[in-house]
């Protein structure tokens, strides 16, 4: 019954983070750690897969806002995929889709790093 966990997979030059469980004020620091590790390793092409995330609060959204500037300054990005309707609604409610690429398929998120024009 782990509240939250993250696993990382490297694929086609991207780092994919799979979030599992709930992302709230209690678990947000774990995601911060993981993003800081990626930045320290200079891996700036980041995909966050929300497939197994069941809940997100503003504390979770805040994590992405806290690192996106640094990552984009390094020619990288955070792209997001596979959100459940419940999770997407929270992003949508705040207008986050104007700031982040949010797509259904993980492969599409990878493509966006290489063929952004097709977006």
């Amino acid at each position, binding site marked *: 019954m782990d509240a939250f966990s993250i696993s990382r997979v490297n694929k086609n030059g991207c780092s994919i983070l799979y979030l599992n469980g709930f992302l709230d004020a209690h678990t947000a620091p774990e995601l911060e750690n993981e993003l800081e590790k990626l930045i320290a390793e200079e891996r700036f092409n980041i995909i966050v897969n929300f497939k197994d995330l069941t809940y997100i609060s503003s504390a979770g959204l*805040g994590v992405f806002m806290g690192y996106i500037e640094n990552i984009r300054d390094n020619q990288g990005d955070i792209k997001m995929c596979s959100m459940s309707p419940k999770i997407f609604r929270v992003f949508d409610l705040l207008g986050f889709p104007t700031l982040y690429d949010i797509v259904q398929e993980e492969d599409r998120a990878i493509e966006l790093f290489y063929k952004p024009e097709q977006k």
Partner: protein
Amino acid sequence: MPTTAYEYRLRIPSETDNLELIREFVTKVADKVGFNSDDVGKIELACDEACTNVIKHAYASDRNNGKKSLDILIKIDFDKFTLVVTDHGKGFDPDSIKMPDMQEYLAQLKVGGLGIYLMKTLMDEVDYQIQPGVKNQVKMVKYFIDKNNSGFGEGKK
């Protein structure tokens, strides 16, 4: 629905570790009284935001030692679901909190400051009553019949 008001009360230590417990409790009651899953999700998030604020802001570092409690009251009336989150911490002036302009917020890549905005967007009524050190309360109401069709996907108010 019962005709007399039903009340559920929860008092727990003010720690992020307990947010999951709170959400499960509140969603269970909201589900039980007949909200659809969208509305249950809204109540869950609004409640989490209010409780997260208590945990993060209400109790100045080492005062209130061992007495950092967070109270949740759910009141079920025939027409509405009321959620009251109470702390006994330092309080604040809710009128001084400016609601974010989301377009500007996103353009400037700001961080934080979305909690109260979310609560107001998700619930039909949000009302603060502050008595620093005594009792600080935020009361949030959701009507069973969605009067003004507020909520997800619209972000008005």
